């Protein structure tokens, strides 16, 4: 196991300024402009919104993988459970439709995010404690199979309570609010979702980079045993990783309910697979990469729809996954949290 200095910022070390470096900056910008021209502003924002949701889920995958090298299959279902927690909370408060009073809307939104994120965080920690922790040093296959089992438990418990069909999620954010940008009508909700997602990502980045707990997370990811010898409380660090990852999935669930207004017990499966693709695309273990990957997957999906291949969307996303794994298994940005390929 190669140890990485816990404070390493390998990604930023002495960038080579040459043709490659220039291309690396210019090419994505050109691509982005081309995509914008192709899709038009409405679809562009739509892609960003979808991408934001995938990115939030992908963060949980990448953090957990970075720290205990487990593909947490149940994570997509955590997102689904988060959506159900938020819709139950809103129904419990008695909201069914749009809230036009901005003050009230802000309070209700904040409460929903807090409730969903806290509940999911706690569930995440409990799952880690009882399902994954006992298997931390077992052969790889064991926790992987356990994760699949947890995924099925989550899905079917939700199905037991809410039935196998779609459940309506109150769209409390008015979808009649638009703002005009460059002659296009952009829903305020989309901008709100993107802002929430980006805000959470920045907060996460600051947490991992600037706090003591964040440093223990990086240390644990780099070399668990060495970190333990340095006095890092491994169990607590791993629990916190699950707490944060699951809370982000809970936030994604809230956002998803606001945007699409429905939730089904098996939503988490495909969303989780796509978010995992995003995490791999960005470089698993790397939180910035996961966010980037999420947005890329959002664009791939919406481009497929615009091009008239909407129902091939999932196939295109998984095809991307296979291609990335074959040609660049370290992902676009490589690894930041740990150094294992």
């Amino acid at each position, binding site marked *: *196991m190669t140890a990485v200095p816990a404070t390493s910022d390998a990604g930023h070390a002495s960038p080579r300024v040459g043709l490659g470096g220039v291309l690396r900056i210019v090419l994505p910008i050109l691509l982005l402009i081309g995509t914008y021209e192709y899709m038009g502003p409405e679809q562009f924002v739509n892609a960003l919104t979808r991408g934001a949701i995938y990115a939030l889920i992908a963060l949980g995958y990448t953090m957990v993988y970075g720290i205990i*090298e*487990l*593909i947490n299959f149940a994570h997509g279902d955590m997102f689904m459970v988060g959506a159900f927690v938020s819709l139950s909370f809103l129904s419990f408060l008695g909201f069914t439709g749009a809230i036009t009073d901005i003050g009230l809307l802000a309070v209700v939104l904040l409460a929903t995010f807090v409730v969903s994120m806290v509940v999911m965080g706690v569930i995440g920690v409990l799952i880690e404690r009882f*399902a994954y922790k*006992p*298997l*931390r*040093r*077992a*052969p*790889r*296959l*064991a*926790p*992987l*199979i*356990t994760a*699949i*089992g*947890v*995924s*099925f*438990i989550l*899905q*079917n*418990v939700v*199905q*037991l309570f809410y039935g*196998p069909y779609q459940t309506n999620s109150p769209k409390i954010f008015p979808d009649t609010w638009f703002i005009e940008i460059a002659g296009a009508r952009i829903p305020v909700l989309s901008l709100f979702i993107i802002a929430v997602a980006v805000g959470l990502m920045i907060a996460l980045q600051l947490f991992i980079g600037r706090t003591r707990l964040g440093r223990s997370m990086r240390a644990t990811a780099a070399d*668990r*045993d060495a970190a*333990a*010898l340095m006095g890092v409380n491994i169990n607590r660090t791993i629990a916190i990783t699950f707490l944060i990852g699951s809370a982000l999935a809970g936030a994604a669930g809230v956002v998803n309910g606001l945007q699409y207004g429905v939730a089904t017990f098996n939503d988490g*499966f*495909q969303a989780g*697979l796509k978010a*995992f*693709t995003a995490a*791999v695309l960005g470089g698993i273990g790397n939180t910035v990469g996961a966010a980037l990957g999420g947005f890329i997957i959002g664009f791939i999906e919406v481009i497929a729809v615009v091009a008239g291949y909407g*129902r*091939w969307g*999932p*196939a295109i996303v*998984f*095809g991307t*996954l*296979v291609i990335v*794994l*074959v040609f660049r*298994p370290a992902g676009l940005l490589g690894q930041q949290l740990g150094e294992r*390929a």
Partner: protein
Amino acid sequence: MSVVSDLPAKRRGPSLSDRRARLNELSSRHRSWSILVGMAIVGAVLPLIVQFPPFTLAQAPNAWIDGFTNAGVFVLLALGLNLVVGVAGLLDLGYAAFFAIGAYTYAYVASPFGNSILGIDILNALGGPNNAGIIFWPMLLVGAGVAALFGVLLGAPTLRLRGDYLAIVTLGFGEIVPLVFLNSDRITNGTNGIGGLARPALPILGGFSGIDPWPYYLTALALVTVVMMFCYRLIESRIGRAWEAIREDELAAAANGINTVVAKLLAFALGASTAGIAGVFNASKLVTVSPDQFGFVVSFTILAMVVLGGMGNFWGVAVGAFVIYTINNVLLKTLNQFFDSAGIPILRDVDFIQLQFLLYGLALVAMMLLRPEGLFPNSRRRRELHTAITESEQDELGSVAGTTEEDLPQ
């Protein structure tokens, strides 16, 4: 004195333990034969016992035999997946894709729609739908071959990745394959699938019928027996030992001269080909194929069978598959009917069939935590799984600096 008087007593005849030892030795020297005999006994006993209560209370004997046939399909699938997951230690989460490929392969050859797509009128060339079923037998091999080909196509680029990436890629593959069959309307007939497949036929005895469960039952029995013999011979062979070595420590296996990529590819291809055989058989039994028969749920069910039965041990896996299938399709259904007719307030409203995946999930987690080697374990696999866990327990007691996970079998 006493020693002398004891001797004749021993010579009177072989004691019970002697006999058992001889039987064990005989069966380990002729394992293929013992599989054959064992399966023949099982195959004869199963239809017999369902003629009597309590089995007849749940459903008619013919329905049981038909159910056993379907269970046989899952036993085949579990045996194939066991080679991949249990023996070689590669987690394949999209195994149903190969099942689908086998089924569609048969559908193209043995249905009017499929023939029109292929542009060759195979059915009429063989003397119409009733006689064309003879094609079923060679198609078993063709289906196996096509599925194996796809196994290699998927495996070649991905098998050099580490195990859990493989799991995700196969999961994606398992999602893509039904999607392709669903969306390519013109050549696969989309959602409706392909119907009107020819039922299998034998030269003199004629075609199988949808009413008589016996021909299908016997065919399934024969297929399971043959595949079991293959599995046994593979596992005990050079390549089987290579698989186990890779499962236990890939690096060490490679260092000892095993070409790990080729060995893993072989495991993948052979596992896929078993699913292909199961697909051909199942398609010929249902006489129709459609994309919704091959979802993730199928892959997951087979995985649960392998894990619960005991990864690596093909007898355990076969029994696991058989028991789980029967529990799902008979016990849960019977419970539903029973509580419906008995009118017990709360239990009446519970759909036990809907609960099956919750049960799978709970069983998988409990199994991994408490008895990771499965109900009927493979001895080597058990040791492997238990050493690892004991070390983790020691670890919790405080010896942090001892072993790292790299030292343990992956």
